[in-house]
């Protein structure tokens, strides 16, 4: 399927927004305006965007510690995301969650997760809910290459296939789990191959090609909506920055040539080239998109800074539902 200009512009815009959001988050963390840990998604934008472009608001996703991109792609409001990073009451979790626990149930974003592999069982539960509702809702479960070595990954694939749950498992193989290359985590670096023993399709995709991700997701989502069960997509990609930062930017440990070669395959530049090649994007239009993203981020930061800190008297609120 050839995507029309409006769809492509929307995807490009979202990818740029995700990248600039995390670049801004790094700057804000260095400036001490936000706290805790930041796990930048920069470099992996094509995965969140290519996948989410196949979903509607009634579909659901679960995310990981590196979750800002998934939130934005699923339609979360960057002002409330930013306020959450600032620890303010207008944040998605009223400042109780922070970067690793952003969720927006209203748009089907069921939460980032600070535990590697922890989101997979929860995603299966969301898919079970979708199956019981019988309205065709699909759940996408994002996780990293590191999570594929967790027991929860294997339990989840097994039961999802057994019960034909409407779920798409999306592994973002960014070549590393923290500082460990995939080769030291897996006897055979082929995450998609885990699909076969669980009797589901497993597809390896160029995760820096948003159109390829989009197309592969279409097949998996169609299959899930039809009631034929799960699929596993392995999107091969790369994170441009460090695994995580707190007060300071950690030193780079990966080979410079490796980083350079992946940066040469920048997913945003690739989409821009595709659009320019089809005469769907002029330099002026691109500049306008970038300017608008910058302005939205300025506004999000202003919104966050204007939002008050939570009142300590609300410490115990939200523990239990009535």
């Amino acid at each position, binding site marked *: 399927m050839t995507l029309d200009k409006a769809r492509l512009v929307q995807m490009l815009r979202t990818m740029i927004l995700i990248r600039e959001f995390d670049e801004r988050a790094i700057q804000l963390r260095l400036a001490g305006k936000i706290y805790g840990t930041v796990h930048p998604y920069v470099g992996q934008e094509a995965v969140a965007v290519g996948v989410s472009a196949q979903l509607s608001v009634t579909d659901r996703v679960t995310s990981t510690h590196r979750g800002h991109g998934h939130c934005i792609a699923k339609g979360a409001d960057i002002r409330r995301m930013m306020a959450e990073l600032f620890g303010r009451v207008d944040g998605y979790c009223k400042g109780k969650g922070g970067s690793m626990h952003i969720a927006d149930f209203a748009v089907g974003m069921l939460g980032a997760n600070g535990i590697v592999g922890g989101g997979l*069982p929860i995603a299966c*539960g969301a898919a079970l809910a979708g199956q019981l509702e019988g309205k065709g809702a699909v759940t996408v479960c994002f996780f990293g290459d590191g999570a594929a070595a967790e027991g929860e990954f294997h339990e989840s694939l097994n039961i999802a296939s057994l019960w034909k749950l409407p779920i798409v498992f999306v592994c973002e193989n960014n070549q590393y789990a923290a500082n460990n290359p995939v080769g030291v985590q897996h006897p055979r670096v082929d995450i998609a191959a885990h699909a076969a023993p669980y009797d589901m399709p497993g597809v390896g995709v160029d995760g820096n090609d948003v159109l390829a991700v989009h197309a592969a997701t279409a097949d998996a989502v169609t299959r899930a909506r039809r009631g034929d069960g799960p699929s596993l997509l392995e999107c091969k990609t790369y994170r441009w920055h460090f695994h995580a930062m707190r007060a300071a930017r950690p030193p780079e440990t990966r080979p410079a040539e490796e980083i350079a070669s992946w940066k040469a395959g920048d997913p945003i530049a690739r989409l821009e080239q595709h659009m320019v090649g089809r005469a769907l994007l002029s330099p002026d239009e691109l500049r306008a998109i970038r300017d608008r993203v910058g302005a939205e981020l300025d506004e999000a930061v202003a919104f966050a800074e204007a939002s008050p800190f939570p009142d300590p008297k609300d410490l115990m609120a939200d523990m239990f*539902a009535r």
Partner: protein
Amino acid sequence: MREITFQKALEEAVAEEMRRDPRVITMGTDFTGDPIKEFGASRVRFTPISEAVLTGMGLGAAGCGVRPIVNWRMVTFSFVAMDQVVNQASKIRYMFGGQADFPVTYRCSTGGGIGLAAQHSQSPYSMWMHLAGLKIVLPSTPADAKGLLKSAIRDNNPVVSFECSRLATLTGPVPDGDHLVPLGVADVKRTGTDVTIVALAYYVQESLAVADELAREGVSIEVLDPRTLVPMDVETLRASVQKTGRVVIVDEAPATCSAAAEIAALMVEDPDTFRALKAPVRRVCAMPVPVPYSPPLEKAALPSRDDIRAAVHDVLKESV
């Protein structure tokens, strides 16, 4: 009133709640009877032996409007799902700022005394209490078992229902109709004036037996069952201890960091209760060992009626 077993009472609770609310589903590796016949295979789910994913699925489905009952069978097996219990279920509502509810019920059997040895004789409810974020029920009678489980299923939070193995065959009266026991309300199982016994699960029954015996010696014992460990009905417990001035806490978990330890602290840290005490608080708990298999060893590890009786005599002798 109708008399049924503890086990039957629990089964009735599940069936009644499934009849009442189509959002209630149940998942486990095994079921008694043939619930699929009445409720269908989409609501009664036979599962693989995958506790981690089951525990998380219950949570995830609950966050999307389903009301799952996940049966771990024995609490022992829940330890394979520690991430989903500790990192996810107990924290998910709070860390997301209360934007969704998670009405999931986790059921498990608990306790020793039936020769199942170390791994299958555990009473770890205080580990779950410590998490802050899970509600915990621990019934001691068929009526409470039914009423608490029904309330747990209707509650909009993750609730863990600990169901004592030694009580499974206990028979007792259960009211007809929609019998509910609210969470967080302790029950005075026997009134008395000299000593308060706060007991849990099987040891409520054992303490009642001891109270009967001691009544013949002229000792008047009040037996309290908290029934819910989270939330804990502190007021009812403190009121009883303020009345009697003496308290013995009985449970089959080892004393270290136990529910019994928590109850003791809740009594002594309250100025009015502290001032009312006429004797030190006593705990009668299991020995700090894995529960052994051989009958004389298992008996030695777990509290006995003699231990309860001795503790009552001790607090009666003491006078502070």
